[in-house]
């Protein structure tokens, strides 16, 4: 292997320097925090309350719970996924390609690995924020009182890392913002429909159930929904392992691709 390939495929160099990138993004976010939080919350809340109460009254119990409680767990995961995805696609692309913020950072003693790690953890932080806000609303509406719901907070971080890493893989390829439409149309939207956000996976034909079984959102919901219903999830370690596997593989892939894009 030549030295270029060696550099591109090198294992991630993780360092606490990522915190400088995280703090930079946090400082920007803080300036726009209120509209940003409201914007992040409005969409999932409308779906959850509109469909939950509207459609829910027409339905009997779903998997032994009222439909809105069923949907609430899906909404937490969906919203957590979306926050990290938008951050890793549009916002990171704008910092990488449009504003050249990364180029500015790379002229200092920061490495590209520090930048990418900072971006993934930042995207996951946005997920924690969205997920947490919805959990608090769920508590406030009395949809769940289980103390096990506290476990959802660390899980939103894991889900955020998963979708932040996968999003950065797309960003590494993207020539322009328009490119991200493919990801939404081909990956995110099918995942929302297949992975049990709105209805149980068991309603799907067997082939689709099989596909759903390998998608990360299914495993996120597989953890969050039982916790909401005051159960410890079956085979929780398997769900955690799948999410962590996607996060690790996605992070490494995005790092390799971004190195190739920026360090040639």
């Amino acid at each position, binding site marked *: 292997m030549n*030295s*270029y390939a060696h*550099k591109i495929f090198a294992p991630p160099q993780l360092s606490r*320097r990522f915190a*400088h990138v995280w*703090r*930079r993004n946090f*400082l*920007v976010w803080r*300036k726009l925090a209120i509209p940003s939080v409201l914007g992040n919350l409005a969409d999932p809340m409308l779906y959850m309350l509109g469909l939950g109460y509207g459609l829910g009254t027409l339905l009997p119990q779903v998997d032994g719970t009222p439909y809105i409680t069923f949907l609430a767990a899906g909404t937490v995961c969906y919203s957590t996924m979306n926050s990290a995805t938008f951050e890793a696609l549009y916002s990171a692309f704008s910092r990488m390609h449009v*504003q*050249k*913020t990364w*180029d*500015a*950072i*790379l*002229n*200092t*003693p*920061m*490495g590209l690995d520090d930048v990418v790690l900072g971006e993934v953890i930042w995207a996951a932080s946005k997920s924690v924020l969205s997920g947490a806000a919805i959990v608090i609303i769920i508590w406030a509406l009395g949809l769940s009182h289980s103390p096990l719901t506290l476990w959802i907070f660390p899980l939103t971080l894991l889900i955020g890392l998963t979708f932040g890493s996968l999003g950065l893989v797309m960003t590494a390829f993207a020539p322009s913002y328009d490119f991200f439409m493919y990801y939404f149309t081909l990956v995110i939207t099918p995942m929302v429909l297949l992975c049990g956000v709105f209805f149980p996976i068991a309603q799907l034909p067997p082939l689709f159930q099989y596909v759903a079984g390998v998608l990360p959102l299914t495993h996120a919901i597989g953890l969050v929904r039982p916790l909401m219903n005051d159960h410890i999830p079956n085979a929780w370690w398997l769900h955690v392992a799948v999410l962590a596997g996607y996060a690790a593989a996605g992070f490494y892939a995005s790092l390799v691709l971004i190195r190739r894009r920026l*360090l*040639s």
Partner: protein
Amino acid sequence: MLVLRGVRKFYDAREVVCGIDLELKPGECFGLLGPNGAGKTTTLRLALGLSDPDAGAIHLLDRNIPRHAREARLRVGVLPQLDNLDPDFTVFENLLVYGRYFGLADALISSRIPELLQFAGLEGRADSRIQTLSGGMKRRLSLARALVNDPDLLVLDEPTTGLDPQARHLIWERLKQLVARGKTILLTTHFMDEAERLCDRVAVMDNGRIIADGSPRELIARNIEPEVVEVYGDAADAWARSAGRSVCERVERIGETVFCYTQDDERVLATLENTEELRYLHRRANLEDVFLKLTGRDLRD
């Protein structure tokens, strides 16, 4: 300060840097000149360890590049060709956040900011948003940002491209101050007056090679006749073919203008007196003449 030995770089099969040698001495201002696409920016990226050379050796502040590039960059300030200030931040926040990338404590950075703003002529603008700054102000802020870590070496990629004359002169004056304070500067430019004013030494780069280097005076003395007479007007062509050719060492015609290069300006000027239809300008040869002679007059895009 910075040493490049036999450095080569390929993009796919195309060689963009073809075995260059460079050595920067402490305290000097060194200019890398060349037309667009000559390989100047790639050379800077190689020197900073942002791109790996395919052959050759690079040392930046006594550290091996790219192996120890991060450590070396602690003592380097970089002004990129295109401003990449953070549009979401104020002037103050831009400097603060940038200083953090060097691992500097907020208190230390904050204590340096008033002086940096004064240097950049941005006193009282600490809380201004970036969008409200003029092009010249942004450039000066970028320069101040490159100084936030109090670097030993400044790497400036086309520091005054796109600025109006007032803004350029202000940047030049600040760069001279920095050299006077003992900073070493490596800059790229395609403005020859800029190089002539600022640089102790220059190297002319074309198609990935250094084709000449030395002080601006040496380059002029070595490469070109000392006097230039530019002749304009409808009759310039006829003059060049008759009198011009016999009295000038070298004649070039570009569009409507005849450039006459000579050792003996008086003899040339004598042939131009009493010719009403000819206008002319007599001047000393400058670095631009050398540059055009060495790199040709073809357009580079």
